[in-house]
């Protein structure tokens, strides 16, 4: 397995992190994704907006390899990953979070983060207990700090509040050497103060690491991203800057739907 070294990572500046070429996904007769073309540069932060059922999460699942695409190619930093299993894509630096937290409820925060750190390092199947000098142990503590969970390291994840679970969800994705993130509605169900916390955490990510964020909260989405792709019925029908999208009449009619405010 090729591991991206520091040099090749430097060379990726300005290159595309993620390229989707005519990607589609059918579930029987249902066309969940239709001919998606999408290119996101390394370091770019892109928001994907669209109503429920527009295909946003399906898009993420296709990129991470939760299921194969029906047609089309996916490239990650120039490498064709269309046929790779999920874990190989993760080992190449792709990371994602889930709309509904997918955590290990019967393990502690520390153990959750430790498992996340070991997943992308060699000797995943070691049967010996971690020594205090295990870098993953230290890394887990740093991740807890980065996601404001240092005080809860030894709590069972099942007992955390919803907001803390959302933070841990991001912490798990930060493990190892991430090169690109897919955030699936990280702000879902958060209180206003927790939202501010989240914007902090996202804003503190290193500038060379880009991400795609699915977010219903326009406030969060437009604050953390430089570009917006609008999805509807499995298609991307408009791309632009946050300002362009906000003022686009078609988008307003479809999505922002003035009637609600």
């Amino acid at each position: 397995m090729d591991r991206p070294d520091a040099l090749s990572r430097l060379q990726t500046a300005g290159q595309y992190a993620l390229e989707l070429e005519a990607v589609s996904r059918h579930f029987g007769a249902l066309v969940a994704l239709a001919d998606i073309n999408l290119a996101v540069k390394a370091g770019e932060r892109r928001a994907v907006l669209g109503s429920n059922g527009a295909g946003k999460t399906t898009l993420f699942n296709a990129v991470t390899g939760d299921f194969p695409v029906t047609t089309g190619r996916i490239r990650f930093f120039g490498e064709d990953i269309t046929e790779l299993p999920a874990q190989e894509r993760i080992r190449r630096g792709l990371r994602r979070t889930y709309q509904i937290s997918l955590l290990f409820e019967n393990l502690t925060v520390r153990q959750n983060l430790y498992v996340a750190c070991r997943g992308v390092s060699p000797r995943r199947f070691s049967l010996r207990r971690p020594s205090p000098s295990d870098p993953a142990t230290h890394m887990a503590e740093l991740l807890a700090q980065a996601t404001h969970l240092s005080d809860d390291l030894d709590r069972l994840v099942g007992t955390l509040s919803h907001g803390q679970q959302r933070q841990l969800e991001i912490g798990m994705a930060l493990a190892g050497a991430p090169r690109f993130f897919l955030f699936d509605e990280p702000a879902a169900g958060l209180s206003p103060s927790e939202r501010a916390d989240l914007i902090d955490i996202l804003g503190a990510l290193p500038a060379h690491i880009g991400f795609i964020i699915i977010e219903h909260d326009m406030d969060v989405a437009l604050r953390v991203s430089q570009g917006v792709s609008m999805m509807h019925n499995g298609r991307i029908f408009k791309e632009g800057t946050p300002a362009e999208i906000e003022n686009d009449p078609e988008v307003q009619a479809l999505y922002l739907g003035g009637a609600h405010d």
Partner: protein
Amino acid sequence: MIAGVVKTISGVRPAWWVALVLLILFPFPANDFFTVQIGAYSMILGLIGLSLMILAGYGGMVSLAQLTAAGLAAYVVAIFGVNSNDVLGFGWSWWIVAPLAIAVGTLFSALVGLIAVRTSGIYMIMITLAIAVSVFFFARQNYEVFNGFTGYAGITAPHIAGVDMRAPLPFYYLSLIGAVFFLAVTAFVEGSPFGLALQATRDNPRRVAALGYSVTAIRVFAFALAGVVAATAGVLLVILNGRVSPGTIGVDVAIDILVIAVVGGLRHPVGPFLGALAFVLLENFAIDLIDRERFNTVIGAAFLLVIFFSPDGLLGLWQKLSDRIKPIQTPTKSEH
């Protein structure tokens, strides 16, 4: 490595040392029946139960084929060792036969895993049950290798330094060493990267894949490890009985193993051993309480009661009792 082991051993709570000393002293007041048929036999059933607990408790995978892995190891001993059936019986040394038997049982368990891990929940139970049933019928109908319905008898026990390992005292200690060894190893591995990853697949397999692990590899490896435990128990079983037949790997016995693991408790590796002890005691003494035809009813009723009052089995009952005795102690693990 050694420092780590020393640290782990020194971290074992005093209650465990007391239990170990009591188990070492147990054969002296007890007669041969209690030493072997209750003590050692409980530890063998407990080991097979532990094999299931590793899969179900840590991995969320219920396999009904762990007894089959143990039984195949016993068959390997009969086939490559000495038996009195004039079928096969190559008469190889125990130092080769025992490791070979454990290797075969392990391989079989890993193979079951390879087939079964694509499914989960009730489907995994069905697939492993189907494998157990087909091996049972194959063994009963195949005379070239399994010697059919009769199976094998007269299997000689090993002699270590001139000591017959089937004699009550040596056999008890052999079983005790096996049980304590695998109990300790399981408790140790629980906190290792692999142990944590396995528990993570129980809670959320999708996320485990999204962290860079191969969920299939984790699960198959767990089946292989569980196979080592089951196969070792199978070797002990054949030393004890001196015979193995299709009845050894019957579905009724496989269900007993499931009952043992669940009633004992799946939250800690000691659970299956408690379950096995309760099972063996009931199996032997329920007849004294009620007439012969109905003793299975007593066993069933007793286990229903345990599960009714404590979903975590005997372990859970123990936890509740000790919580009541020491109410000041704050529980570290929450109830789910």
